[in-house]
Structures are given as C-alpha cells and as structure tokens.
C-alpha cells in the first residue's frame, strides 16, 4: 500500500505527536507514505474569511501535486480533509471555479484536473489495511480501557459519506474495539470542537470544548481522528473547566497513538510524552487490565 501523504500544518507543529505516531504505526502496518513534496497550508478555516478563490485554490494545489505524483492522497487531519474534499467537489461541479483556480495554480506551475483520489487516514486503516490485519498486529490489548471515540465534525460530515453512516459513524468505534478497548457511547461524536475559536474567541471555544469533555464522563481517555481536535481538547482543559465551574483532567490521544500503544510500540516513537495532559494513567490501567484478563474467568465479572 503506497500513498502520497499530506501532513498539514497542525500535525507538523502543535500536534507533532499525531505525526510521530502516525509515521510509526503506518510503518508497523506496512503502509508506505511518501510526504507530498512541497505541500502548502490548506487555508484551515481562515481562507474563506479572506478569499473564496484561495479557499479552494490552496487545497487544490496539494491535489494537483498528488495528481502529478500519480498517487492517491492521504491525510490524517480532518480539517485538511474537509478543505481538500471541498476543493475536489467545487472544482468538479463548477467550470468557472475550476478555471479560476487553475489560473491561480498556474502561478505555481501546476494544474488540477480532478484525477487525484483523496483518502482519510481512518478510511485507509479500516478499508485498505483492514481490521482483521489490525487485530493480528495487536500485542498489548487495551483491556480495561474505556475510550471515547471522537470523530469530530469534519469527519462525520464528509469522510464517512463514502463508506459509513454519516450521522452515526461506527468505523472508529470498531477500530478501538479491535484494539481491545471498551468503547464508550458518545453522543457528541460528530460535534464540532470549535476549531480556531479556542484561540480567536476563547469564551466560545472553551465552552464548546467543555461540553465535549463533560460528555466523556468518567472515560479513561478521548481519542480523536484529527490533530486539531486533539490540540483543542488537550490544551484548553483548564479554560473549559472554568466555563462550567469544574476541573477536567482527561488524557486526549490521536488515533495512531492509541493504536501504537496496542501494538506495543515504544512510547517515545508515539510522541506520548508530548501530550499536554499526561497519559501515564493509561499505562497503569493497561497493565492492570492485562493482569486481570490473563487471570481466570473473573475478568469478565462486574467492575
């Protein structure tokens, strides 16, 4: 399995642990990722506020680069995915937009015809690698861990339209269950984390994050399918607690970090020391869980 890979700015910077763990787990699963040469920012949620054309052309340039490399393009960031898939559709459905976007792209020496196929990392893991293969590679089952799968909005609305229920996706739940985790039912699994509002309008951003953290209840951790969601849910727990007079301290991991843990990969390779909320509590619980399940039938008793 070979793909062109688009890391995006979030995974290359403030969510470096997402990128590190993604590389480590994909290597472990035999997925070959070649970083898209000379990729640029997709415009995040900011480009639309300045220029409609740039909001399509910035992601379209990356698609054009993938097209030139004759590869499918994979990204692990849901915000980037949303912008990229939007560019695919907007150029495909509107000749005038396509023409103007290509006029802009000509400034960078590329053109986009709509050939490159876009994939989300979760899509690749579930559908190309396959859950059966993932199950085979688990060496340290996450027994005893109660995990919230947080798909995020950019995921729920677009990715799964291809292969999962859009309003109530389950592929992430299935992946976590394959790793041995106890998946927590989470009604806000496709609710938006507020994106950059945590920085630009803290009072609103913190409230949105607070709602998500509170809905996780007493789960052991939240796992996200987007580096930007992970940054938000990790970095603003104090502020989020402040909006509802409570105190949050729940580890938030990227999906390949939790996969890497179940694969028994070294913590450092998964960037686990970089998570804003320390994840040490998980190590203890995995160890306890493993001890319990290797014991007798009492493991399946009430807890």
């Amino acid at each position, binding site marked *: 399995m070979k793909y062109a890979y688009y890391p995006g*700015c*979030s995974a*290359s910077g*403030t*969510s470096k642990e997402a990128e590190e763990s993604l590389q480590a787990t994909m290597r472990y699963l035999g997925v070959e990722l070649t970083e898209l040469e*000379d*990729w*640029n*920012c997709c*415009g*995040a*949620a*900011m*480009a*639309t*506020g*300045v*220029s*409609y*054309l740039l909001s399509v*052309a*910035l992601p379209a*340039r990356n698609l054009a680069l993938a097209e030139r490399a004759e590869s499918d393009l994979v990204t692990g960031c849901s915000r980037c995915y*949303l912008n990229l898939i*939007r560019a695919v*559709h*907007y150029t495909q*459905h*509107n000749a005038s937009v396509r023409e*103007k976007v290509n006029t*802009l792209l000509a*400034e*960078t*020496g590329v053109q986009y015809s709509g050939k490159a196929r876009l994939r989300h990392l979760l899509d690749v893991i579930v559908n190309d690698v396959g859950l059966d293969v993932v199950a085979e590679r688990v060496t340290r089952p996450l027994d005893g861990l109660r995990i919230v799968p947080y798909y995020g*909005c950019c995921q*729920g*609305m*677009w990715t799964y339209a291809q292969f999962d*229920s*859009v*309003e109530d996706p389950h592929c992430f739940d299935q992946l976590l269950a394959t790793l041995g985790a106890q998946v927590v039912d989470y009604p806000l699994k496709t*609710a*938006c984390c*507020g*994106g*950059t*509002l945590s*920085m*630009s*309008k*803290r009072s*609103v951003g913190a409230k*949105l994050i607070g709602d998500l953290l509170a809905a996780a209840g007493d789960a052991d951790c939240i796992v996200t399918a987007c580096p930007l969601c992970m940054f938000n849910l990790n*970095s*603003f727990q*104090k502020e989020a607690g402040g909006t509802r007079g409570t105190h949050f301290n729940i580890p938030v991991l990227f999906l390949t970090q939790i996969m890497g843990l179940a694969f028994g990969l070294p913590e450092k390779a998964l960037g686990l*020391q*970089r*998570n*804003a909320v320390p994840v040490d509590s998980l190590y203890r619980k995995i160890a306890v869980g493993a001890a319990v399940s290797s014991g007798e039938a009492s493991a399946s008793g009430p807890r």
Partner: protein
Amino acid sequence: MGAQPNTLERAWTPRTLEHTPSSTDLVGNDFSLCYQCGLCTGSCRTAYAMKYTPRQVMNLLQLGRTDEAVASGSGLLCTACYSCTFRCPRGVAVTDLMAAIQRLSLAQRHADPHIRRFYQAFMRTVERHGRFHEVEFLVRYYAPNPLRLREQVSVGLTLLRKGKITLKPPKMQSQKAIAAMFRKAAQIEGRP
C-alpha cells in the same frame, strides 16, 4: 441519513459565490430556497453565541437585510464545520453563505478587531511561508496589543516545554509562487 444526494450535490455546487460578494452580489443566491426549518441552527454549535442564528441570517438575506446580518458579526463565529450545509434539506450552501457574510464583515470593519486580526495574521503568515508558523502568527496577531498575549501564555509554555513550537519558520521551495497566487486571487476578486 442526512441530505438527499441531489440536495447535497446542490450545496456542493457553488453558484454566484466566487467573488468576494457585495451585498448586491448575494441577491438571487440559493438562500431563496430556504424554508426556515432551522435544521442549520440546530446543527450549529456556536449559534448560541450569535446575535442572529444561521436560520435568521438566511431569513435576513431573503428579506434583503444583508447589512444587518453583516453588522451582527454572526458569520465570524462560524467554524466552517459544514454540518448545516450537509444537513440542509433544501441544498442551501449555508456555510458558504455564512463565509460570504464573514468576508463582508471583515472587509467592512464591523468585525470584532481581534477576530479580524486573527484572520489577517493567519493568512499573511501563509502568504509569506506557504505554511502556518505559530511564532510569526502570534507576533502578527498580538503586535498592536501585546498585553493580550498573556491569554496564550499557559498554552504557549506547554507547547514550548513539549517541543512543539519552532522559532524557525517552515521552508518550502514554492514560497514565492504561493505569494504570487495570493496576489493573483486579490486581482481576480478585486481586493486591495
């Protein structure tokens, strides 16, 4: 579930939104299809903080009261998650219409100055480097009001301590070409 494929197809197909719209450019756009069911507002996590919710913004557009929608700054709270667009049973491109309102707000100085600077600082950083760079962004964002930087101190220190902020800006080969693309877009869209 969600929208029927044909309505989603509609929402995916931008019509008259290519240019930075003026109030008059918006007239005749597909907000006329909106029958005010409110599914957009129900799907919106930031509607609670908006003066006019997405449904009310669509209504203001229908009534020709675009300027009120723009002045309210409601578009600036849109996170562009596209939940409203995806769910709209009428195939209205609600998110792109909110973005158009957002652009008008930012262009007409009705905007919250901090949010306005946030957009500008972000896009200027991308224009210069082709990619985002946290440090340069923060400098640009807080330059006029450095005391506000304290609201980012706790996040910033954690990021530094965990080795997630680099002082050196990212380097890509096509930096200059990206900047040229920004200039070309401004030219086509008639922006200064």
